[in-house]
Every structure is written in C-alpha cells, then in structure tokens.
C-alpha cells in the first residue's frame, strides 16, 4: 500500500469494460477526459470487450478464459491499463493469472498485464496524485457506494473518499450499512432475483435517507441501484465517479 509512487507514465490504455461500453459509455469517455487532463495519451484498443467476470463468477472458467485470453493479447506496450470499474480491475489484476494455471506461456502474459491494471480512482490518487482543488459547482451532498470486490481487492473506497472530499463544495454523506453489498453480484441478480431484490431495496432506502444522488466507481452496482430506485419510483440518481469528477472540474453541479 505504501510503496513509493510509481513513475508517472505519459501513455495509458483504457479498458472500458462491457457494461460501460454498452450502457454507460459517457463514464468511459469521462475517464478518458480525466486522464487527458493530466497530460496523458489514452489508447483504447478497439478489439477489447469484457474481462470475463460474468463467466468466471458463475462457474464457467473455460468461457472466462477464452474471453480473457482475447483481451490479454491487446496490451503489448508496457503502459498502465486503467479500468473505470473496480470489480473488473480486480478480476484482471487478481484472477486473470489463475485462469491460465495450465498454460504457462499465457499465464506469464496474464501476469504481466495483471500487474499493470489500475482501477481509475486508485490511479488518479496513487499514480497521478491529481489536484482537484480548483473544481467548482454548486454545493452538493452526495453518497458514495463502493462495489464490494472493488473495496476488498482494489481499495477503491479509500480512493473514492479521497477524491470526493478534495472537491470544493462537495459534502460526502455516509449512509447506513455503507459497507454492505448492493445485491448485484452479476448473475446472482438474475439467478436469485428475489434475494438480490431484497438487498438492493435496503440499499436504495439507506442511500435515499441521506442523499438524492450517489457516486460510485462501479457500473454494475450503479445500474443495479439506480434501476431498482426507478422501479420503486424513488428519486435517487447515480453517477459514475468519472462523470461526477469531470462535471465538477468543469464547474457543473
């Protein structure tokens, strides 16, 4: 955790993730803008798709391996790979190498790639040491939800709190059971829809109790919570952290 800050790169890859790609592309674009704002050149390999997590967590490692193998081939330059989703970053960093236990050559590549994977918020804080003290916008109170795997595998909550509390005019409000899961869990939300539904109902309630707007670094959780809130007719809005940061930096509310 407290290793010396890695050297500041001038080029990075962006791995956009499948959810952002199809459902929240603005968040991906905002991540690019944040990186460019720091003077970095961002490369987006057009052949990228998904980290393989849905197959991996549902007990289909062969399919996960197939998809991961296709991604691993895309990052041949020694640049950091920035991922605007903590759970996907965790999958790539911590689980990709294990997928190739029986294929030493691919495993070596997977290790190399995995070692360069950063979650966006962590990258902004730890590697780029961004200074957002000049951000503006109306005073606003927001909640923060952190994906469980992002929190546990990538330390994302700490980074999220650091970034948000450095923004002038932004008050961060902690909701009850903040560290509890939102009930998404990928295919869990489809397979055990009622349990997942009960968990997200509580999450919506506890977020709604403190804010009308929450920020998160994970699109899976974000879609889960916002679509559940909408289903219940609750006026709770969610925003990807990249979008929220970009807007504050541009002086928007």
């Amino acid at each position: 955790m407290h290793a010396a800050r890695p050297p500041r790169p001038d080029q990075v890859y962006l791995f956009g993730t499948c959810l952002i790609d199809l459902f929240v592309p603005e968040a991906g674009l905002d991540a690019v803008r944040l990186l460019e704002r720091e003077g970095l050149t961002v490369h987006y390999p057009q052949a990228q798709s998904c980290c393989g997590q849905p197959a991996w967590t549902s007990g289909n490692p062969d399919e996960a391996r197939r998809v991961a193998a296709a991604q691993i081939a895309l990052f041949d330059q020694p640049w950091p790979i920035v991922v605007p989703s903590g759970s996907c970053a965790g999958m790539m960093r911590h689980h990709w190498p294990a997928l190739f236990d029986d294929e030493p050559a691919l495993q070596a590549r997977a290790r190399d790639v995995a070692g360069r994977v950063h979650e966006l918020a962590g990258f902004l804080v730890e590697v780029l040491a961004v200074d957002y003290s000049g951000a503006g916008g109306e005073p606003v109170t927001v909640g923060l939800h952190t994906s469980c795997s992002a929190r546990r595998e990538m330390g994302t909550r700490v980074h999220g709190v650091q970034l948000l509390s450095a923004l002038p005019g932004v008050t961060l409000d902690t909701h009850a059971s903040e560290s509890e899961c939102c009930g998404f869990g990928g295919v869990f939300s489809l397979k055990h829809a009622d349990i997942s539904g009960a968990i997200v109902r509580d999450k919506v309630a506890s977020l709604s109790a403190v804010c009308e707007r929450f920020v998160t670094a994970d699109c899976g959780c974000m879609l889960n919570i916002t679509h559940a809130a909408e289903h219940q007719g609750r006026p709770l809005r969610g925003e990807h952290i990249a979008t929220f940061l970009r807007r504050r930096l541009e002086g928007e509310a």
Partner: protein
Amino acid sequence: MSAQPLHFVSPAQFRGRVSEALADDGLRDNFRSAMNFLRDKRASQFPDPVETEALRDLGEAVRKHALAHLPALLEKLEANLQARGVEVHWADTPDEACALIHRIATEAGAQRVIKGKSMVSEEVELNHYLEARGIDCLESDMGEYIVQLAGERPSHIVMPAIHKTKQDIARLFEQKIPGAGYTEDVDALIHTGRQVLRERFMQADIGISGVNFAIAETGTLWLVENEGNGRLSTTVPDIHIAMMGIEKVVDTLEHALPLASLLPRSATGQAATTYFNLITGPRRPGDQDGPRRMHLVLLDNGRSQAYADAQLRATLQCIRCGACMNHCPVYARVGGHAYGTTYPGPIGQILSPHLLGLEASRDLPTASSLCGACAEVCPVRIPIPSLLMRLRTEANRAPGARTAQPLAGQGASFSLGQKLVWRFWSGIYARTGPYRLLRWAATRLRRWAPRRQMGWTQHRTPLVPAARSLHDLMKARRMAVSDRDVKKM
C-alpha cells in the same frame, strides 16, 4: 414465523423457502437487528487491526497445520484419549453415528439423555433417532431448548433461536411448560427454562456434548460455553459422550490458544466465554465428580471429500464461530431456516455440498453475490467466495466430465442450454467481429430492448443500451483528433 417442524426439509426446496422468508417482514426485521447487534459486538472485540490480522494469521496457520497432518493427529488424539480411559468411535455416516450412540445407551440401559450444544448431533439428527427408539433427549443450551420445545431446528450455529422474539418465547413457554405464565421479562423466561433443565440434569443417564477443539497431544476436549450447561452435561451424568467432526483436532494446547481467543470474539463479541471446559478423560480414582465412562464419536460424513481436494480443504479450517452468517447480506435477509441445512449461511453453503452432495445442495453455492463480507471476518481466513465459485464450477460440469476428485453430485446444475448460452457469450466476447455486431445491434436497436429481462426486471426497470457504444465514441474521437487539434477539457 411459522412453527412447523423443520425436520427433514430438503435443501433442494431452497427457493420456495426463500420466497416465504422474504415475504415475512417480521422475520427479516428480527434477523436484521440481531445481525447488526452481533456485528457491532464483534467489531468492539477487534479494535486493533494489526492485532486482529496477526491473530487471524495465527488462527489460519494453526488450522492449516492441523489439516496438513490430519490423519496423524487423529491417530495421536485417539491414542491419547484411550490412554486416559476414553473410548473412541469412528462414524462415516450420520446413521452410523446415531447407531453407535444408541448402542452405548442401550448397553448402559439409559433412558434419559441431556445434551449440551452440539451441531454435529444436529447434523446427524440424533434426537430424532434416539427418540424414535424410546430414549428421551433434552437440549440444555437455552437456545437449543427453545428450538426443541418449538419443534424446530436451529437457525444459527451459535444462537439457535435467534429467529425468535421474546414474545415468541413467552408464548411458547406459556403453552409448553406447565405452570409457566406469560411474561416478556427475559430474566424470568430464562429462570423458567433453567428450572426445568436443572432437574433433568440430575435425572439424566447420559450427557452428550460437542467439542470445540480436540487437542491431540494431551487428549483434551475443549468446550466453550456461556451457560454452564456444557459443564453440567459433561460432569453430572454417569456417561459422557462427546461428538465432533474429524476436522476439529489441533496438535497442541498452545495451538488451541489463538482459536480460543478468536472464537468467542468472532462469535458473540465476548473476550472470553463464561466457561472454558477442558476435559481430559472420565473420573479418575479419588475424583469427586465427573462421568464414570466417557466416549468420543468422530464423524466424517463427507468431510474427507473436502479434505481430499487441495482448494476445498480450506472448508475444514472452520471453527464454527458464525461470524460469516452474521455478516452475510443474504443470511440477514432470508434467515437460517431457508437454507434447509444444519449449517446455514456462508459456511453452510461451502460445507453442505460435501455433507449432502451437490445434487441436494445445488442452489446453495449460487445464492451469494460474492461480496466477500464473510471472508473478511472469518477468523481463520477461509476464502469463502473462491470456494463458492469452485463449487459452482463443479456443479456446472458436464455429466461424465473426468476430474481427479469428482465431488458427490458433480454436474448437478449442468444444463445444455446454459452451457450453450455461455459458449455463445464467449464466442461473441472473445472475437472482434461478433462483438462489433453485438454493439451495433444493441445500440441501433435499443428502442426494442426487451421490457422483461429475466430476473433483473422483477425488481428493477429494464436496461436499455446507450445510443452509441464507448467503442463508437472513441472511434469518433480519434477521427476528430486526426482532423483537428482538440482543445483539452
């Protein structure tokens, strides 16, 4: 809360029970507040993260060491117990364990059994077995006593009656205990229960207990408890029978120490339990009390299947503290009975497939968002989410798939349809052309996105793809960059 007996429920009916449990707001509130209370209590016992993590390291190391030497330690335990006059019995199955104990009881002409808390005895359904053969069994742990009186089964491994409110218990005692009036005063309720139990300790021919740690080197059985019922059950009756799973052994007394600290702190948020009972053999000549004969029943019941697999072996590190269920978002919503297994919650989800086979327990490994709260608090660092994923993989295997150590019920969740869906999925996401086509179709045909999307839309509005994918946006941007100098944001 329905009070129907839960004997012989099938874990296969998990989904039905989940729906019932979720519809029961009162039950959910009970669990929610009980879990919050237990989480806070545990947190108060681990104020120093450095000490906590060091102790968990130690706990994990001790359990791993024990499992790495399991056969040798079990033999050592057996030899040392025998040297101290304890009769040691081995049971492969629940039936064997029950039959063994029944035989001991019949040979001694025993009629009445008093029981300290033992999850292994729940696992083999001992009460049911003995009662069907005319032997009376009474639970002496207050929580167990309440569940037994209600004709139910424990909903938690440490606090068996956690699903009950004091009003439930007041009504139950009023109905079932002659002379007990209705009172919601907790002390009075406990007093009523204790009075019934006191007498029965004196009348019992056999006391049955569980074991928290068995120490191979000294032949000692270590029992933790808060009510003194464990001590009474193991000292008053003439015969003491202890029951344990084969994984509960550790090498030395010193090895048990970190576990004895981790267990109460993780389980009930106590620095130590009120009683620590270290039992090393029956009454010796000159002793004032203690049982005249003592037995230990060691149960396998599928544990060797977990033991045989390098990854799944971690399941057996468990010291049954219950912290994983106390912190589980699923357990907190559905409660312990919904699982239909002796061990509910995360530990039950990784253990039950070995005890019952994956066929009967196939819905358990998937009933988790893999949030990892369990592994974060587990005092012996069992990587529960990884084990759940592994069990999912084993359940998904095609029939006839050859594996080094096939699990009982392997392939129970296999469906050709599902397999094809995942093949198709990987065929798209692993290849540029098909994925480009998917993006094109999803974004251009977004207005036709289905209104009902499997389980998703039961509790959420439908997902609708964006008008342009990130791929599209980035491509457009790159073209713009080459056209002109873009002003930085």
